């Protein structure tokens, strides 16, 4: 039992990171209406920017802030130079272009930083125990950072005028247009927000693991899976699904074998889609 609780808590932390990445995917999907494959590489970029920031200032928080700024800037640049031009076209065009954007980001990172691994120098601390459950201080930090980010994002979405407009566009683009919401401002807010969230996910992933040009790309699949599982375009769903997948992976994979850990994600995904074709929280949309 103790093992399972520990595994679940491990999964929870991984799940929060996946959930953040999925949140970035789902925000873009809900409003710009395509699956953004550049999300993973935006994460990587955020992690590298945070590394630089930390090295410059010596402060991890300042580094993280630079990471977020870099992620947001990347989102805006990608919107301005690529996705804005594809707005009137099918979602597949944007999806394919986003793969291209991801490749370009990865190429630049590879050229600038090389392919070797880099790490965030976190203090390594031994765990403390609560009811005989091991709790790792670094996990707590990562989880806290993820939760703070989530709270901020949801505050932006629900308590600011631009956030409400974003949600309105997500709910019904036609309606939003009729009621006079300037889509351009919404799009700018969206891309800055999604880029920033990706960067946070990247920094947290980098703290847990190592930073390399491919790290974000490798996390893209789980992030997509979580976004779909949660019901694409549904922010709460993305986060919940990310946690669900993270926990399921850790708790179940000792039983089915660790080599099938990643496959578990898809098993869960397919299983849910069989019964809820639009994901856990997805609305049954009508004729599109």
């Amino acid at each position, binding site marked *: 039992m103790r093992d399972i609780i520990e595994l679940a808590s491990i999964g929870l932390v991984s799940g929060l990171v996946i959930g953040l990445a999925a949140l970035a995917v789902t925000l873009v999907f809900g409003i710009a209406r395509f*699956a953004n494959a550049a999300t993973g590489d935006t994460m990587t970029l955020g992690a590298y920017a945070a590394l630089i920031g930390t090295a410059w200032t010596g402060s991890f928080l300042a580094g993280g802030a630079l990471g977020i700024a870099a992620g947001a800037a990347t989102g805006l640049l990608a919107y301005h130079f690529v996705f804005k031009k594809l707005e009137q*076209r099918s979602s597949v*065009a944007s999806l394919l272009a986003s*793969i291209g954007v991801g490749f370009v980001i*990865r190429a630049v990172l590879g050229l600038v930083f090389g392919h070797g691994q880099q790490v965030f120098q976190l203090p390594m601390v031994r765990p403390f125990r609560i009811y005989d459950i091991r709790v790792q201080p670094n996990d707590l930090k990562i989880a806290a950072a993820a939760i703070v980010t989530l709270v901020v994002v949801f505050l932006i979405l629900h308590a600011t005028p631009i956030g409400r407009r974003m949600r309105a566009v997500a709910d019904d683009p036609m309606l939003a247009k009729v009621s006079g919401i300037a889509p351009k401002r919404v799009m700018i807010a969206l891309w800055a927000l999604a880029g920033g969230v990706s960067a946070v996910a990247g920094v947290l992933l980098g703290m847990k693991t190592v930073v390399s040009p491919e790290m974000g790309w490798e996390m893209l699949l789980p992030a997509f*899976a979580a976004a779909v599982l949660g019901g694409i375009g549904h922010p709460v769903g993305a986060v919940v699904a990310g946690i669900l997948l993270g926990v399921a992976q850790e708790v179940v994979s000792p039983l089915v074998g660790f*080599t099938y850990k990643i496959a578990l994600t898809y098993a869960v*995904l397919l299983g849910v889609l069989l019964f809820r074709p639009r994901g856990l929280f997805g609305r049954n949309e009508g004729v599109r």
Partner: protein
Amino acid sequence: MEAYLVAIAIVTGIYVLLALGLNLQYGLTGIINFGHVGFFCVGAYTAAILSQHGVSLFITLPASAALAALAAWPLGLVSLRLRDDYFAIVSLGFSEVVRLIVTSERWLTNGVQGIPGIPRMFADLSGMSQASAVLGLLLVLNLVAIFAMRRMVSSPFGRMIEAIRDNEEAVKALGKDPARFKLRVLMLGSALAGVGGAVYAHYIGFIAPEQFIPLITFQIWMAIIMGGVGRVSGALVGTIILMVFMEGSRFLRDVLPFISEVEMASVRIGIVGLALILFTIHRPQGLMGDYTRK
């Protein structure tokens, strides 16, 4: 030099098979299949495992096609009714699951060690004549595929899949079930990928799970996007550009020695990315034009 060119031509031929399959699925029917490499993998392993037991080439090729199509069947049945972009992600996951299965099930696939010593095709020939024979076989396979596809496109079946690509809901409104057609198309395209996988296995002679990563799928996508979706000529031209680009960058190295290999890898992926972006924005119909019939 000739043998090298033939080698590239052979790999190109294999990729064209894959591109034709994807073109049928995406270009003609609108199925966003991001798991193409999974069926390539199934085909390659089918051929490798069968030929280890002494089964001849004339059986391994069709068997690979059949098994790849069969692998597509449950995937299509379960997920083709999902939204397009959901299917894209589920199929991507499917190809990863295929890779994990061949990695993990050592009793069948020899796991991560891979399967070495897969018999070559036309083994009684040697050198150039063997390579030319392989190329000839690929040419025949591709011609058969193209011929069959042309036949299909001009049939009521072809008309229907293009209708599905243009508007799936409207097809439903006419009382026809799009999923039925999409399932067949998914299986057919997968069969082509399977044949490609079989030829690949026999040609390279060694397969291991790490050869079947999603990057292959995206390369094929790039080929059909550049060449022009919905057109046989597009699949062909796009694949050739892809191969010339990937192989050409080797020679670029000889000319530009100041770019290190590590940087070259980044440059290569960067150019692929830029090409994807520029083509989707400025030349969405690809080099050979889009799928407007005529």
